[in-house]
């Protein structure tokens, strides 16, 4: 069964550093999402992406965040200058958008900002 993959599984960085979290959505899916989950808290929507542009973003997704689909397979989330409060699990999800809109989530990247 096709699945969403994410790399790395765990990223440790220093405050102020840039990080790029990578996702490979399910092939032929058209809609892409990033969510985050701070330890012990709710899963929070960050951004949705369709047709090579952001379709919706939350208040969390401020100027330090950006997303990109650099090629036909990868979908990345960049955090320009990490803060301690960016420490969380980051989940990528994708949806077909044709026959179904079910979002399939990846296993997540645990980001630890020191």
């Amino acid at each position, binding site marked *: 069964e096709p699945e*969403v993959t994410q790399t790395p599984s765990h990223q440790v960085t220093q405050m102020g550093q840039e990080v790029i979290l990578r996702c490979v959505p399910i092939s032929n899916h058209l*809609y892409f*999402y990033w*969510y985050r989950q701070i330890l012990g808290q*709710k*899963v*929070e*929507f960050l951004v*949705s992406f*369709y047709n090579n542009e952001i*379709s*919706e973003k*939350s208040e969390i997704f401020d100027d330090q965040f950006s997303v990109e689909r650099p090629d036909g397979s990868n979908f990345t989330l960049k955090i320009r200058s990490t803060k301690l409060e960016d420490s969380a*699990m980051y*989940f990528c*999800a994708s*949806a077909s*958008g044709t026959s179904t*809109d*079910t*979002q*399939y*989530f*990846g*296993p*997540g990247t*645990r980001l630890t900002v020191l």
Partner: protein
Amino acid sequence: LAKTTQPISMDSYEGQEVNITCSHNNIATNDYITWYQQFPSQGPRFIIQGYKTKVTNEVASLFIPADRKSSTLSLPRVSLSDTAVYYCLVGPTLFSGGYNKLIFGAGTRLAVHP
């Protein structure tokens, strides 16, 4: 987006049927009801989605009364591996006017005991 209310936690035993009810009094006409499951340190996993009446798949059933102000997820004959957090989400889908961002609440923490 419709606010949802569900029990914080539930306990059950192996082999029993578990019903988790979610209240969504201000559900909109184009909102669908979707349930996700999440195991620790994993991404959420789609369980079932419905608009009205009853929906059944190989994993669960979803009961939605005519007024759609609540819904009940039914898990038949749970096992230890069903111990997880279950989220009820209400909102428009890609096919009903939204970009399908998922807004997660705190969910219901289900513990299945031997």
